[in-house]
């Protein structure tokens, strides 16, 4: 279980004379079950990516706690092998000096298995994300956006984490590739059974992927709703969000 308890975060903005701090998250609390796909939907600037960074333990909340199985996620040992991430910008997601193989091997390091085992795992992962083993020796600048994002997904699932934070993971791909990647994510979930925290502004993609959705606005949770009852949303904001999507 991943518990987010009353988390607050503010950033300092230094103006010309005085420093003022801007609060990005106001007392956010929710939890995510093992194997659940939880969507966090909000507009840009709503603080959803900040929340993602806090869940990944890259930044610490000012107040409140984020607990993975009861232990604070800010501790490196707690995160190790338990949590992983796929980011929006595939161009900066892989170290430009690493080959695809080196990138995927990275989270496997130090799990006590041999190099040959890791090599086989890399092949298996590439196959799972729909890339041929020939991609092993390629560098990130030789990959297209969809391919790079697949490599990032392979890297994220490599050490079988319990949760993966997908921070706008499909937003910078074109529509056809988005659909492919969504399918891929669903397949992988059925194989590995990890939980997804799917952060996006795209309510359609979220509705397709997620079991439960959190509508997020100005650093606060507006509403939490199961996807199959999406039509019954209560709050005005959630309704306008739903209304704003182009129904095809």
């Amino acid at each position, binding site marked *: 279980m991943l518990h987010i308890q009353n988390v607050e975060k503010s950033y300092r903005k230094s103006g010309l004379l005085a420093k003022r701090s801007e609060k990005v998250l106001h007392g956010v609390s929710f939890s995510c079950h093992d194997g659940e796909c939880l969507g966090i939907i909000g507009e840009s600037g709503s603080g959803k990516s900040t929340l993602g960074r806090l869940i990944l333990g890259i930044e610490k909340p000012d107040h409140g706690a984020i607990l993975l199985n009861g232990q604070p996620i800010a501790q*490196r040992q707690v995160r190790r092998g338990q*949590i992983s*991430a796929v*980011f929006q910008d595939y161009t900066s*997601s892989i170290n*430009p000096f690493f*080959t695809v193989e080196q990138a995927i091997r990275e989270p496997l390091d130090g799990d006590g298995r041999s190099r040959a085992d890791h090599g086989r795992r890399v092949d298996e992962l590439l196959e799972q994300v729909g890339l041929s083993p020939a991609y092993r020796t390629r560098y990130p600048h*030789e990959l297209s956006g969809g391919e790079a994002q697949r490599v990032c997904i392979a890297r994220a699932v490599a050490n079988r984490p319990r949760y993966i934070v997908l921070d706008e993971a499909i937003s910078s791909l*074109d*529509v056809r590739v988005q659909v492919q990647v969504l399918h891929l994510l669903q397949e992988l979930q059925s194989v590995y059974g990890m939980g997804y925290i799917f952060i996006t502004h795209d309510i359609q993609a979220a509705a397709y992927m997620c079991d439960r959705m959190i509508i997020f606005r100005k650093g606060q949770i507006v509403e939490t709703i199961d996807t199959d009852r999406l039509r019954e949303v209560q709050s005005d904001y959630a309704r306008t969000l739903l209304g704003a999507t182009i129904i095809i």
Partner: protein
Amino acid sequence: MKIWKKGSMDKTGSLSLLVVIGVIMAGLFAPLLAPHDPLAVQMSLRYAGPSWEYLLGNDQLGRCILSRLIYGIRPSVLAVLVVLLFSVLIGAVLGFAAGYFRGRIDTWIMRICDVVLSFPGYVMTLAIVGILGVGLENILIAFVLTKWAWFARVIRTSVLQYTEQDYIRFARATGMRHGQIIRRHVIPVTFADIAVVASSSIGAMILQISGFSFLGLGIQAPQAEWGMMLNEAREVMFTRPEMMLPPGMAIVIVVSAFHFLADSLQVALDPRLRQSGVQHDRQPEHKEVPVRL
């Protein structure tokens, strides 16, 4: 190192490397290589042109210019390299700490840098030499004390732009140690910047050391040093302009060798710039977008 195995250093780079290694070796084994005693004065050979015995001729006191050039490698190149090594090392440690960890560490280190950098370089070095006393070692110590701040600042800026990259976020999220992240992800990508900055300051340092020697604070008169040789040649600039050639060319060759070496190292290490290797044909996943609605 893997670059040698891949053989991806280009010709200019390999040649520069040869020059650099050759010069360093010549400096280390100067007593074996130099044909004459660099300090032996022979007034009969004053300003003599090149001959088979004295390949580059003789200077205003009839000393062998070639031998003086070879002995001059020690203060001019080897000492500069040592200074560079120490100041880049200090600068790198502090720059990495400041750029990677940010926050309070960053503020403190940068304010100290500001203080060090706020004094003009020459004045600061003069003051330190004034305290420690005259001599090459003290000038070198003074150089390290004044140069590190500049390196720290440049390296921090370089580190800063990479720490926000998603692959570093990923490494942190998956629980990798900070030391490991710096070693695997930050050092390789910032290496190019460090190499360029370091190699461009070599030339300036050689000239500064000679500047201090000219003021009588560094190398003392009879000893050979490139900058000082250039300075001695300056006095007869119009009557015997060829005297400037050997030390001048030596400085130009060494400085350009370091520059070219830094350049081709950068290319050899960065897969994006490397031309070798098979060009993979990319699947045009971007181009065709048949959306059926």
